[in-house]
């Protein structure tokens, strides 16, 4: 069963006489339980794509299907983690309330909400922070809260839009391991957008390389690294270096606008 099917997606912005085609023709699928990373040159319409998938923007053409259902507004089976954690958490609510608010909208019982909130906060390592305000926490901790909010929402698919672009390198490594850990523990489906090639290769089971805008899929690449990954060993493994070099070259050629020859799902040869 495909968790997410994107077919022929196109998005054109029109305004004040100008017509900008941000996304031209995107087709790919994400299987249930998969962790897929999307990378592309900066300004390639990644955020547009993600917002179309999350039902925040209406595509001009094509469609997105979540578990077989066509997406035509924010679907309840999808949770979003934004890059701007500081602006995505509500500063007037305590951490616990921030995580709980979407659950109230779902109409869950109080007991069930409490259970989900404390479970989610515990799994991101913030069990003690429920009573704090987001702005009392560091940037990395705030993004953990945003992840906890997404987890508590119990989505079929978790969309993450460059979630770690604004945190420092140390924190970023911790958060990457957190995401991989959560994914392996809970078996959720994650679509992770990033502009960082290393991050994409380190995290993903599969990497989808996007072209420059107007966006198409440049290449899909299976990451054949072992499932047990850690910052110390994985990043210095020769295979990691090969994969990242390959993705790097693909992005460079995407920037130049040369179409890729290999539109396959096979890893590059060793």
């Amino acid at each position, binding site marked *: 069963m495909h968790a997410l099917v994107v077919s022929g997606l196109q998005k054109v912005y029109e305004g004040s006489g100008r017509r900008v085609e941000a996304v031209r023709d995107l087709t790919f699928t994400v299987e249930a339980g998969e962790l897929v990373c999307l990378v592309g040159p900066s300004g390639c319409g990644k955020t547009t794509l993600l917002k179309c998938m999350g039902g925040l923007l209406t595509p001009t053409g094509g469609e997105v299907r979540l578990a077989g259902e066509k997406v035509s507004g*924010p679907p309840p089976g999808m949770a979003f983690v934004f890059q701007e954690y500081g602006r995505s958490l509500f500063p007037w609510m305590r951490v616990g309330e921030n995580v709980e608010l979407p659950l109230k909208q779902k109409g869950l019982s109080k007991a069930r909400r409490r259970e989900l909130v404390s479970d989610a906060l515990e799994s991101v390592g913030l069990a003690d922070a429920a009573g704090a305000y987001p*702005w*009392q926490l560091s940037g990395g901790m705030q993004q953990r809260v945003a992840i906890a909010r997404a987890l508590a929402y119990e989505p079929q698919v978790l969309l993450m839009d460059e979630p770690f672009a604004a945190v420092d390198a140390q924190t970023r490594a911790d958060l990457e391991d957190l995401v991989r850990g959560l994914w392996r523990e809970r078996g959720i489906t994650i679509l992770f957008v990033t502009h960082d090639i290393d991050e994409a290769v380190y995290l993903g089971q599969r990497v989808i390389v996007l072209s420059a805008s107007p966006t198409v899929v440049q290449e899909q690449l299976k990451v054949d690294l072992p499932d047990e990954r850690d910052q110390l060993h994985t990043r210095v493994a020769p295979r990691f270096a090969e994969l990242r070099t390959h993705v790097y070259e693909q992005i460079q050629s995407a920037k130049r606008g040369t179409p890729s020859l290999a539109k396959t799902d096979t890893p590059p040869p060793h």
Partner: protein
Amino acid sequence: MRRVLLRVFFVLALPVLLVAAWWLASDGSTNVFWPPLRTILQTFPDVWTADRLKDDVLPSLLRLTAGYACAAVVGVAIGTIIGSYRRVRAFCEPVLEFLRAVPPPVLVPVIMLFAGIGDTMKIAVIASGCVWPILLNTVEGVRAVDPVMAETAKSYGISGVARLKDVVLRSASPQIFAGLRQALSIGIILMVISEMFAASNGIGFTVVQFQRSFAIPDMWTGILVLGLLGFLLSMVFQVVERRVLGWYHGLRASTRRSP
């Protein structure tokens, strides 16, 4: 301990000094308009008896509360509607800018035409003067809801009443409170003026009566009461604001520390 004492000293020193200066400077005063502070303070308990508080201060405060509350409800409600729709905002803006610019006291004679000189007139005057700063600040606050927050709410299915209550109004609350604060001082001004125009009770009425009958020390006590009232209302407002906007002050302090 020393720091506490120092703080207390700083809080009290100048006020004590000023009162002492007033006391000494006015002590031997024979100028009828500047009676000695001693006389004013002696007159105070005779003038502001429990009956007077009930008959004059209470009605004034009730009218202020009624007018202010009407203005707050109407201002926030209409401001939220106007702030939520770009077209509506463009349509209303010039008219609102004009209405806001009308100095509120000139509303007194206008509203007297419609509402006579009773309580309705005074409440209407206070409400129609207070509503503009609240309304326009609400428009600004609602308009400026952070787009990322709006998208977050949308993607998590937060809509309808919950969106309004937990996201839009909370996010606009610092602006709304700025409007409420401006409205409070306008409200007090209008409370006093509407009573000076036409009334049979109220603080403003009483003070003007004292002045017209040349009861100068009594008039001075009235000025003191008005001053105290303004101070107390502003304290109450501050307490409420600190409670409601605690998060906002914390947020601002934390962004100032780490820009």
